[in-house]
């Protein structure tokens, strides 16, 4: 289904240790999911409570940190201040590539309120906007002004910015690399190939319905509300705190310690709140490294958070893609063959692409996946890396073929999907969007109508599994207070909330009675949040800690109550002793605890987590053929994920995915100027993101037909299909297929003009 490189399919040959079994798990490495085999306990005694008995889990619970966020009480890395703190700013190279022949910092360093100006020591830059020097000053303005006083002599280097430039004959080489034997130099590099291309091409040739088109996706930005960066609180002593905007509390402090010249044990990472990462915020980064370096040199706290322009130019992006797809369909709608040639555009890195055919079953297929280097910053993982790109290619192609074959767009999907989960999910979104009453189910609407309404579908897949790492502590005190603690981070997804909720569910408490503490590297370990692995990695450990604490509680109380631990149970009314029928309130029973209270640690257990997320989304749009306006009227999404830890935040994830996809479909695009070597929209004016008026009716559906009693992460699945559904809906509305995103009015209008002259 999905191509995962180096993922061992078979269980290891060596037998597992006694009492253990082999389990395939997903781990996030740099935001990508990687699968590994590990040993886990063969049997697990207790698991998640029965769904029917859940009070808090699988309910709508508002975020416990919502009030702090909306009142501004929540402190992000950006908000952190310390006495004698300096502000640092980077100088960016204005060229896509250049030799740094000379860099003079004296004038900058002498400016008022400037503390230091330092060269990063780059000899040759490789991408537009690469940082080459850094200034620290008493105020941000002074730092910014000082950047302008740095004199740099740039030596010319050739470069390429766009796909077209990169693949041109004799194009300058963007990234130097070792060539394989017989390989010609160039920016386009073969990554992987599959299938027998000649046979596939022959099958396409012979098929009744065939198409060949190129589908293009732009480079998208993560556009995190909080830019990347840290505030390093180092005051020249023997310890430091790194306040980081990161997706991994434990991904910053080792490197920070090294840069600061301190033992790792003396450096604490603090990540209470972070303003969005979407896959782009792992590790210390160039910004964190230089903040630590400056802090060490100055013996002062350093605030280095990127400017918005920095963010657009060197904080990562979703790789673009140019996909040439040739496909064929039988008269009955069966997908017969697919040949894919895919260029990934990841700047100086490779970008992501899972492979084609994506999810759907195709008779025979071949593919060549390549990456194309340009002198732009490297792509990073971005919510569902590569999947939205692959989705757009295949979902567009299916609709184009289905129209040729006169097939119902919903039925044709089901026909080419083996997994029945997709069938029910597609039917569910189809009902909700009004498909069965829709007039254009196998033929698009007419471009001659002023207003056309269309519907489109697309599906997604994701792993969402967890892996070991988390160490969670639950503590109950004599006054009845309960805490759940782990060093993990909350990306805004509601991590704090479900930590508290799980513990409260098991102890019979209201969700607000349990305090969740996170975001410190001094707490128990946790994995970074990438690949939607957080919930499936963390929640099982929270459950284990809660089960452990509850067991200890029963064991501690049983003697005092002259009963057996097995006879005790906790619910909203407190403790019940089944033997005597006696009850005791939470306060009363906690008062019986020793003065230190009790605590239990939980670690990950495979049995509590699952993997294998699906999803289907439908979009309904209106196309105004007079103005080219595409208005999304409604989007419906459904994604299975085992037990919903919190239905409210689950629906938020689906909504957020659909919103980001809408924005990708209609607006977002990095615009570069290939003739001048410049970026034209490295700001929120030119880089347009959907706003309130673009919002359609959003219908996030919880898949209650998924009864798996495990937890898994579905967040990335929610961003994969939406833009494809919208593009399909545009075609369905008016017969116009826009094959390169975003679908802006200019493309719609020019496309319609062409349809008019053709007919």
């Amino acid at each position, binding site marked *: 289904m999905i191509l995962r490189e180096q993922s061992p399919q078979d269980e290891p040959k060596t037998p597992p240790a006694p009492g253990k079994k082999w389990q395939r798990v997903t781990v996030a490495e740099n935001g990508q999911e990687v699968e590994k085999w590990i040993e886990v306990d063969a049997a697990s005694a207790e698991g998640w409570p029965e769904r029917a008995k859940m009070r808090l889990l699988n309910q709508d619970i508002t975020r416990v940190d919502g009030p702090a966020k909306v009142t501004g009480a929540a402190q992000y890395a950006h908000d952190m201040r310390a006495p004698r703190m300096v502000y640092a700013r980077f100088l960016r190279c204005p060229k896509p590539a250049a030799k740094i022949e000379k860099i003079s910092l004296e004038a900058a360093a002498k400016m008022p309120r400037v503390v230091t100006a330092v060269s990063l020591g780059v000899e040759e830059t490789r991408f537009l906007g690469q940082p080459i020097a850094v200034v620290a000053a008493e105020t941000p303005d002074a730092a910014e002004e000082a950047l302008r006083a740095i004199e740099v002599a740039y030596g010319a280097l050739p470069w390429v910015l766009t796909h077209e430039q990169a693949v041109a004959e004799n194009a300058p080489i963007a990234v130097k690399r070792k060539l394989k034997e017989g390989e010609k130099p160039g920016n386009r590099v073969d990554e992987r190939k599959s299938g027998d291309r000649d046979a596939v091409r022959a099958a396409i040739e012979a098929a009744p319905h065939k198409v060949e088109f190129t589908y293009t996706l732009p480079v998208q930005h993560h556009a995190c509300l909080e830019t990347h960066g840290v505030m390093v609180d180092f005051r020249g002593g023997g310890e430091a705190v790194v306040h980081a905007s990161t997706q991994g509390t434990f991904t910053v402090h080792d490197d920070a310690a090294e840069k600061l010249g301190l033992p790792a044990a003396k450096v604490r990472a603090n990540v209470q709140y972070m303003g969005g990462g979407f896959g782009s915020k792992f590790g210390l980064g160039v910004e964190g490294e230089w903040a630590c370096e400056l802090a060490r040199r100055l013996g002062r706290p350093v605030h280095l958070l990127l400017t918005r322009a920095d963010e657009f130019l060197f904080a990562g992006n979703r790789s673009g893609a140019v996909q040439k797809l040739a496909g064929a369909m039988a008269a009955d709608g069966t997908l017969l063959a697919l040949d894919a040639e895919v260029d990934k555009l990841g700047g100086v890195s490779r970008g992501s692409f899972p492979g084609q055919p994506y999810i759907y079953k195709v008779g025979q297929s071949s593919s060549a996946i390549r990456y194309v280097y340009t002198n732009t910053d490297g792509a990073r993982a971005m919510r569902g890396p590569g999947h939205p790109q692959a989705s757009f290619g295949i979902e567009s192609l299916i609709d184009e073929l289905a129209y040729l074959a006169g097939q119902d767009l919903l039925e044709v999907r089901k026909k080419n999907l083996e997994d029945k989960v997709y069938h029910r999910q597609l039917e569910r979104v189809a009902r909700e969007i009004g498909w069965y009453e829709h007039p254009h189910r196998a033929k698009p609407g007419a471009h001659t109508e002023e207003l056309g309404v269309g519907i489109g579908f697309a599906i997604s897949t994701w792993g969402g599994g967890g892996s070991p790492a988390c160490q969670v502590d639950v503590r109950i005190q004599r006054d009845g207070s309960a805490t759940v603690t782990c060093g993990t981070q909350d990306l805004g997804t509601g991590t704090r909330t479900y930590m508290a909720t799980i513990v409260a569910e098991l102890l019979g408490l209201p969700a607000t009675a349990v305090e969740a503490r996170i975001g410190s590297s001094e707490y128990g370990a946790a994995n970074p949040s990438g690949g939607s692995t957080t919930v499936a990695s963390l929640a099982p450990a929270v459950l284990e800690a809660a089960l452990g604490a509850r067991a200890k509680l029963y064991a501690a109380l049983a003697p005092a109550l002259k009963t057996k631990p097995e006879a005790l149970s906790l619910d909203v009314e407190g403790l019940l002793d089944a033997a005597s029928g006696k009850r005791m309130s939470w306060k009363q029973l906690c008062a019986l605890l020793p003065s230190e209270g009790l605590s239990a640690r939980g670690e990950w257990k495979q049995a509590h987590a699952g993997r294998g997320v699906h999803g289907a989304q439908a979009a309904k749009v209106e196309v105004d053929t007079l103005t080219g306006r595409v208005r999304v009227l409604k989007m419906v999404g459904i994604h299975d994920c085992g037990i919903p830890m919190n239905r409210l935040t689950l629906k938020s994830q689906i909504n957020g995915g659909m919103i980001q996809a809408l924005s990708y479909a209609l607006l977002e695009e990095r615009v570069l100027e290939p*003739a001048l070597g410049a970026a034209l929209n490295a700001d929120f*004016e030119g880089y347009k993101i959907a706003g309130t008026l673009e919002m359609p009716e959003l219908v996030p559906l919880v898949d209650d037909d998924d009864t798996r009693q495990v937890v898994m992460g579905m967040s990335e699945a929610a961003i994969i299909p939406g833009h494809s559904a919208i593009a399909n809906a545009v075609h369905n509305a008016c017969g116009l297929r826009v094959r390169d995103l975003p679908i802006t*009015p200019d493309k719609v209008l020019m496309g319609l003009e062409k349809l008019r002259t053709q007919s």
Partner: protein
Amino acid sequence: MKTFELHLPKTLDEALALLEAPAATPLAGGQDLLTELKEHLVAPDALVDLRGFQGADKIELAADGALSIGAGVTVAALEHHAELARRWPILAEAAASIASPQIRTQATVGGNLCQRPRCWYYRNEALVCLKKGGTECFSYGGHNKYNAILGGGPSYIVHPSDLAPALVALDAEVEIASKKAARRRVKLASFFTLPAEGDVLRENVLVPGELVTAVHVPAHAGNWKSTYLKFKERSSFDWALSAVAIAARMDGGKIAEVRVVLGGVAPRPWRASGAERVLTGRAVDDAVAREAGDAALAGAEPLSGNAYKIPLTKGLIVKALRRIGGRA
């Protein structure tokens, strides 16, 4: 940004005196000027803050439709003036289409008319384009999706103001004051200049030392209908890809007199006289509207990436005329 002196005059006369200094720049709501400063597109030695006296500026609307708007009136005030919205919906609609509610509470009418272009080549400090004293308009051979299809050359900016086309459609005049000369009034239509006509570095006839103090709309006898229809790539807040401003005197079901002005397609508000000729004396249905659209865009010369503005503007003309005719 470069350090500058900030003057806070309490009267217009004081301000005009301060503006005599070379490189002294008027500051109104600051919604454009502050960005220009921060992005190093301008580096004045002194700013003369007009808000010390502009707070008294008012909207005065007479029964015959005559209207005076002080330069310091905010865009939000125009948007929310109930009587004005009834008499000249074109102005309330234009105002409401501008930027975001927050920006509208600060942005002034004078500043809106005098704001600088948004072309992304112009706004990129590193690119020294024609508008910044360079030798080339980079949009010509570049990413010109947002640039001019009418009246362009040698610069292809589009004028960013939404109030401008609406006010030109109302035949407005601007009142201009300076220390040296007597107050003068200029038709707003000739206040704005084309790059080929005047100084390519400017968009209007103002010279240093001059201030816009008010905008005046003459009396309009008869049954006038007006509308402003702006098309944004992103509805939530954006500049016009194209906009149509229409004011028409109706005689029964027919248009007796009309002004059609286009925004977002030319370096200044673009009077579509051809369309006006088509419409005058006609009862307007979609067919007539399409005829007017063809006439309005007859002289369009699109660049490599903005030919779509032709069908777009034609489409907007059809829709705007439906509003004028009470058909939408």
